[in-house]
Structure formats: C-alpha cells, structure tokens
C-alpha cells in the first residue's frame, strides 16, 4: 500500500468476485467513515453498473463514482492474482482501475483525473499495465504518468 497518495496500487490482489472488490473499495474509500457510509459507497457502485458496464477493454474494468461519502479523491489499481469472472457477461478480468471522486471536488484534482482517464486511450498503455510482472515496474509506469501530467 502507498499511504494516502492519490494513486494506490494493489498488486497480485487476491479478490475473487465483484462483491469482494466493491467491498474492499468501499473500505478504502470510507476509511474514516461509518460503516453506514461504507455501505452507501458499496451500493453506489452497484447502482452505477446498472446504468452501464464498467468494462473499458478486454480484461479491464473502470468502475467510478462521485460521492459525498468519499472524503478524498483517489485512483486505485487492482492487479488481480487470478483472472476473475465479474458477472454473466463480463469475464476474465485482470485489472480494475477505480476512480473515487469526492463530491464537489476542486477543479485541479478533476483535471488530474481527466488527464489520467484520457491516457488510458493511448494505445499500449493498458496493455503495459496488464502485462507488467513486477510491482515496482507497474509503480514506475503510474509515476511516469503522474510526472508527465504535472
């Protein structure tokens, strides 16, 4: 884990189902909140999926919510230890990138997130994130992005 930094990377992650993933995310997002708030985040993710699939590429999901229960905006990376089946239609998921957006977040942070999501459209970037075998290299890849975006 990387403390409270904006980007957090969970490498070789042992999550096995959608519920487990969302539960885990809501724990991080609501670190300093009540369990009720954590539950609210959990449900918000589930609701978001009803509106549209979070899948952005083969093997990759990008679930994202904006919520008043989120105290600090963050981007979380989960590189799963084993590919998981997400639901009836989405399977073989290996990388989950989660965007947690604080309600009424300041523009500068929003911009930073926007810049990041845009970079996901670059050819090869997601491929690299999917296939890097070392956590440190993965880290570097994200940091490189962060530095470029400064």
């Amino acid at each position, binding site marked *: 884990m990387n403390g409270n930094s904006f980007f957090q990377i969970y490498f070789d992650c042992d999550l096995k189902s959608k519920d487990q993933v969302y539960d885990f995310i809501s724990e991080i997002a609501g670190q300093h909140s009540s369990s009720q708030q954590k539950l609210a985040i959990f449900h918000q993710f589930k609701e978001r999926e009803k509106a549209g699939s979070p899948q952005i590429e083969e093997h990759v999901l990008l679930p994202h919510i904006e919520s008043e229960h989120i105290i600090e905006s963050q981007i979380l990376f989960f590189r799963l230890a084993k590919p998981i089946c997400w639901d009836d239609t989405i399977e073989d998921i290996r990388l989950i990138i989660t965007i947690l957006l604080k309600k009424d977040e300041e523009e500068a942070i929003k911009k930073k997130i926007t810049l990041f999501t*845009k970079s996901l459209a670059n050819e090869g970037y997601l491929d690299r994130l999917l296939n890097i075998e070392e956590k440190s290299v993965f880290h570097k890849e994200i940091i490189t992005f962060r530095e470029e975006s400064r």
Partner: protein
Amino acid sequence: MISKDNREQKLLQFLSKNQDYVTSKDLADVLHTSKKTVYRLIKEINDKCADDSLIVSEKGRGYKLLYEEFINYQISNKNYKEDHFSPNERRKRIMEELLLSSPKPIKIHHLFSAYYVGDSVVFNDGQIMSEELKKYNLVLERKNRTLAIIGEEVNIRKAIKDIIEIFNIIDIDDLKTNQELKFSKYDVLFMLDQLRNIEKDLNITIPYPYNVNIFSHLYILLNRSRKSSAFIYTDKESSEETEKMKKDFNLYQVAKSTVYNMEKYLNNALPEIEIYFLYQYLVSSRMQGTLVTTSNLSSRVIQVTKLYIDEMSTRIGLDMDNQPIFVDLANHIKPMLNRLEHKIRVKNSLLSQIKVTYEEIFTSVTNVSEFISEKFNLPAINDDENGFITLYFAKMIETSEHQRPIKTLIMCTTGIGTSELLKAKASKKFPELEIVDVVASRNMQMFKEKYSDIELILSTVHIEDNIPFLIVSAMFTIEDQKRLQRKIEEIYHER
C-alpha cells in the same frame, strides 16, 4: 416469384451490404422464400466457386459473405468462359456473328454446328433473337437456310456494343496481355496505338470508361468493315452538323487522321461519315487535361448542372453551395448531353456496385434525372449515366469536407471517468464529431441549456431525453463504432 439466378444475385447483394452475419430467417424474408431454400442457394453458390467458400456460416449467428473472395469471384466469373454454353450465351454468340456480318446472310448450319442443337432449338433461338433485335429496330431475316440481320448501321453498332459483353469488362491496360479475350493481338495493338495518338495529338488523357468506349467503337468499325465490306450508312449527317464539326478544328483533325489510319490498316476505304461518327465519340468523352472552366460552358450545361446540384441538395440534405462539385459535374454533364443526343451509350461496369454501395444517392439521382430530362426535353437518362452522376455526389459526401461537424456531448455518471476515455477514443476515430464537452449525467439539464445546439449525446449510461443519444460501452467496441457511424449518417441525413 423471382428466378433462381436472380435470387442468387439478390442474396449476394444483400450479404455484401451487411458486413456482419445475417440470419437465415432475415435472408429468407428478403428473398421471400423459405429458410431451406436459402440454405440450398448458399450451398450452390459455395459449390460453384472452386477453391474457397464465398459464404461462411456460424452456428447461432447465420451467414456472412467473405468480401474479398466475393470480389475475386465476381471478376473471375466474368472473365472466364467455360466450354459449355448456356442457351443464353449461345444466342449471344450467334447474334454477335450475325451482327458483325450484317447484312450478309450466314448459313444456319455454320452458325449452330458448334452447339449440337436440333431444329426446334434453332427455330426457338431465332424467335428469341428476333425479339431482342426489335429493341434496336433490327430484323432477323430467315431465307434459304440462312440468317441475316437487316437494319440501319447505327442500330447494328449499338446492338453489337450492348451484346458483346467483353466491352463491359475490358481494361485498357490489360488488353495487350490478356489471353482470355478473343481479340486479335495485332488489332489490339493497332487500336491502342490509335488511342495513344488521339491523346497525344490533343495533349490530353482519356480516362476510363471513355477510352474503352472509343476502343469498342474502333473495334466494331474494324470488324464490320472486314466481315461485311458492303455495309452502307444510309443515314447522312446534316450539312449543318458537318459544319459544326469542322469548326471544332482539333477534334475534327484527329478524327480524320484516325479514320485515315484505319483505312490504311484495313486496306479498304471507309465512308466519309465514319469521321463524323468517331468525332461524336470524341466529343462525348471526358478528357482530362482540358478541364473546362465555367466560362466556356454552354448555358444549357450550366443550367442542367445547377439543377442537378439544387435538386440533389434538397434530396440528400447537403449544402453544396460554392463546392468544387460544380466544375467537376459540369465537365461530366457536357459530354453527357452530347452522348444523349447522339445515342452513345457508355457502359458503366461499376453500375451494380454503385447501386449497392450508394443505393440512396442512386435513387435520388435517378429521380432527378427523370425530372431533368423532362424539363430540358432530353432523351431519357439511362442507369449507366445515373451511375456516373451518383459517383460525383458520393465522392462529395465521402470526402465530406463540406460537412459541418456534429456537436456532441459525452456523458457518464461522473463526467470524468469513462466519458473522458470515450472522448479520447471517439475523437480519434470520428473526426465528424465536435465534442463540445464532457459532462456528468446528473448535470444534463444544465448542459442542455448551455449548449442548446447539441446534436448528439454519446453516453455510457442510459438517459431519458429527446435529443438523439447513443449509448455505447466504455470499451467503444467495433460494434459501438458501427452504431455510431450509422447514427452520424442519420444525423447528416436529417439535416
């Protein structure tokens, strides 16, 4: 009930229009037949092509045409004649021989011996050919076990041109080496030489299909003169027309010297009117390198061209003012009017392809053409011509520089997650879109006010609104892209 050949054609056309799989039920509906027949048709088509299947099937998805194989199949299907002739082909070949020799009679035995058919078939073929020839005001005369075609020279040549299919498919560059064609090599070289001289003397290039058209004309002239040196032109050009031709000094000289070369090659004199005839072909051809500007177009050409553009812009909903299309199209219309007047038909070998690819434009052009020929008192404008005109408008749409971009909002729940990703992907693939903003779905009302002229919302989440919107997955799959392409076309169309 449509015939089998027709159904095959229709099936192939329908499949070629759909890039993806089509279910047998859909195919059955289109062809008004049963699924079983569809299955049988497809099997027959696949059996016919020697090497690979043309149509592949996948369980649960249906049938799909392998486009590349299809194109190859179309080409090879036209180029290679089998030794065995269908009744239709037999009649065509016999008719060709008769036409080229007209008015000389040919023995029936000589005509039919190669096909091993009985008297009743000969009689029947005669009936059918008579019917066909009526369209050209020609008569099939049967006398003393011979057949002969009688009629005016102009009509005979027109019939030859239509009936000899080879003119639809020849490629000028390919002529010298193509073994499949039954042209004599010397003739081909001689005629290509003539074409080259014409181009050189006029300092122009004659593009396809006009070069093929002139080639065909020379070919027919050559063979008519050989097979029946007795052919006579009964129709005479009016002295007024001749005067007009002589004023067009350059073209007249070229026509004259080409006919002179033909006479030398044939070692036979040709009637004076051949010069006029060839001249008409030259005037009716589009020539590159002498692009006329509006200043030397007749007012009639300008009016017809303008009317085409005006009518087409209302029909296909495009603003074509100040477009380079005017000069382009006028340069086509000018020789076209001449072709119509002198009944010169340029075969459009791309016609069926054009009809499939630009179905809508073609239909509009056909309607406009009807309207125009009525208004300007022109002979009916045929499908070959309509096909060419279609290409001018299609080209303009495809290049689409004139199209104002579609103002688009991109939306997701937060306005910074998948929507940003989508924006990056969509703007890369669809330059037609002007993405004005990326927004969160809950703010939609606000943004609708801010951007009142929005034409499309691209969203990864469902929205309820009357603005055209398209839900796409954040993956922006090929399927999504196709749907977006269709939506863009819809919007362009509605404009």
